[in-house]
């Protein structure tokens, strides 16, 4: 497989909020992911917190972005960047920092914690709605509708879910068309935090498996029977024979870029390593799914198969060079 060195995937734009945002109709009563019934009476001051930044992006896409009073570290929407960040040490919640923002409703899930803080917030009298923390294409629509239901804008939820679903299938066919020339590239998602000594690869159920499927690749970690996020094993990585590494941009930066990446045991000794076949994308986007997913998928598809992509045909002279 011809590989043309590391590529950085850039999302062209962010998801547009629905064109005619409705005013929340409250109170709403929902049964959350834990089976508990939660009543929301006020959606003036919203906090939406998870590890992927998906919930806040969804609130924004539903046209309620101006009601968000804080954000998690993974929320990437440009117009929300000035909101106070309430997570630290990566993805740890802090009850006081959250209470200081005086939220009237909190949407969160078990991808972020500690659980005790979420319970404290509930005990402080704030409606805390625990959402589903799965991330893959199949649940995007339901998750959008669930957020919309909590915030009392079910119509906007339907509209957004429908337009996102339609856009996803468009993006999928575009990527599939582009991928035809490449023969099922073998991909693996590396989650690295060099400064914290975290070297993981993502397998089944991590969301990375579905992302790779959407990109028309073979998830080699899942193929090896890996589930969730596991510490990277040098021999296992070599044996799984990846052609391409998918990474978060800050993760790649934390190990010293594409050159530093090769110094991690095992990484250099694969086809992906030999050819420097690395595609990275903004941490807040690459695994967030949600309404932003079509944009993410197109950007990744472009970085992998596009004319200037890592596996792309490129200009004529490039394509005909044997490697």
């Amino acid at each position, binding site marked *: 497989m011809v590989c043309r060195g590391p590529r950085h995937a850039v999302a062209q734009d962010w998801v547009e909020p629905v064109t005619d945002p409705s005013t929340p109709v409250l109170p709403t009563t929902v049964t959350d992911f834990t089976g508990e019934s939660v009543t929301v009476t006020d959606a003036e001051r919203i906090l939406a917190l998870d590890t992927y930044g998906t919930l806040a992006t969804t609130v924004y896409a539903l046209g309620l972005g101006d009601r968000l009073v804080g954000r998690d570290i993974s929320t990437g929407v440009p117009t929300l960047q000035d909101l106070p960040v309430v997570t630290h040490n990566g993805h740890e919640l802090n009850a006081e920092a959250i*209470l200081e923002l005086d939220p009237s409703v909190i949407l969160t899930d078990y991808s972020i914690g500690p659980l005790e803080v979420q319970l404290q917030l509930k005990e402080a009298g704030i409606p805390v709605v625990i959402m589903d923390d799965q991330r893959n294409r199949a649940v995007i629509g339901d998750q959008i509708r669930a957020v919309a239901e909590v915030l009392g804008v079910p119509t906007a939820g339907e509209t957004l879910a429908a337009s996102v679903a339609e856009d996803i299938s468009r993006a999928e066919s575009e990527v599939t068309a582009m991928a035809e020339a490449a023969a099922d590239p073998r991909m693996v998602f590396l989650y690295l935090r060099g400064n914290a000594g975290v070297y993981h690869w993502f397998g089944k159920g991590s969301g990375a498996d579905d992302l790779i499927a959407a990109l028309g690749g073979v998830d080699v970690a899942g193929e090896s029977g890996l589930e969730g996020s596991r510490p990277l094993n040098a021999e296992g990585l070599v044996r799984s024979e990846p052609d391409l590494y998918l990474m978060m941009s800050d993760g790649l930066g934390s190990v010293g870029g594409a050159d530093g990446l090769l110094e991690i045991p095992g990484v250099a000794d694969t086809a992906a390593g030999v050819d420097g076949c690395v595609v990275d994308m903004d941490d807040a986007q690459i695994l967030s799914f949600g309404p932003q997913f079509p944009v993410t998928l197109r950007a990744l598809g472009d970085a992998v198969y596009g004319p200037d992509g890592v596996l792309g045909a490129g200009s004529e002279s490039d394509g005909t060079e044997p490697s």
Partner: protein
Amino acid sequence: MALLVALGVALVAAAIVAAAVGQLPIAPSEVLGSVLHRVGGWVGLDIGSVPSHPRGEAALWNVRSPRVLLAALVGAALGGAGAVLQAVFGNPLAEPSVIGVSGGAAVGACSVIVFGWSFLGSYTVPAIAFATALGTTLVIYAMARHGGRTEVVTLVLMGIAVNAVTAAVIAYLVFLGDSQAREQIVFWQLGSFNGSRWEAVRVVAPVVAVGLAGVMAITRQLDLLALGERSARHLGVNVERLRLTSIVIVSLLVASGVAFVGIIAFIGLIVPHLVRMVVGPSHRTLVPASVLGGALLVVIADVVARTAVDYADLPIGMLTALVGGPFFFWMLHRTRTAAGGWG
């Protein structure tokens, strides 16, 4: 006695200040106002006032109060446990985290997290932590003592061995756990009061109360034990029973702390030692003063941990180890100088 009163007053003052400082600003006067308001509410009086921040009342009563109380309880438990442990081993360097009692408790607590046990409700973590802490302490006790006393070298080496084994078991549990359990363990291993809830206070308070009552009941006997095993026996002390009782109590106190907030090292070393420097070795003063001093120190350390960096919580175990490590080194040095060697 004067020291006890002074420590008590300092603890109350520290608790009020601790309740007042934090990322959500509440003035000390507002804390008092809110306490008065609560107390007044119980007896039907409309006095005091609620804090001006819309979530101030909630932050004060649901986030900060349980946190300050839990810090005081755990500090008291660790201070008391340290003082008793040093009496039982006849060695001022005995400390729950140094000799491995805390590590033993940690193994139990991590097992509960990884295997998702819940057969005893919210008491599951402390109960299992107690069981493993007790087992570990008994092993340390049986192996470190020789001829009625414990040598410094033996005790420190035992600590290294026990901590190595518990660290290995915890590492294995981390490997077994799913990513959520892993994060929970890592968070908890650093030692932190972030996320302290009333439920934790409700579980820990009675356990610590029982433990501390037990500690106070044996202070006179511990004083006699300090005269030497033989003399104590002649004065009517059942030495073996006293030792076993002490070990059970220490395990209970350490486990109740470790179960909810992780390993907070060196409190049981620093506090009794400082108290000894002020009032001497009599356990009738040493033990209660260590209990109050431990509570005071942990409450203050937790304030530093949660206010030093905006929007963040520093791991308190890291803070205490940062101060306690050099302190331990200094004590080792002193012991060596005094004893003329490592005996």
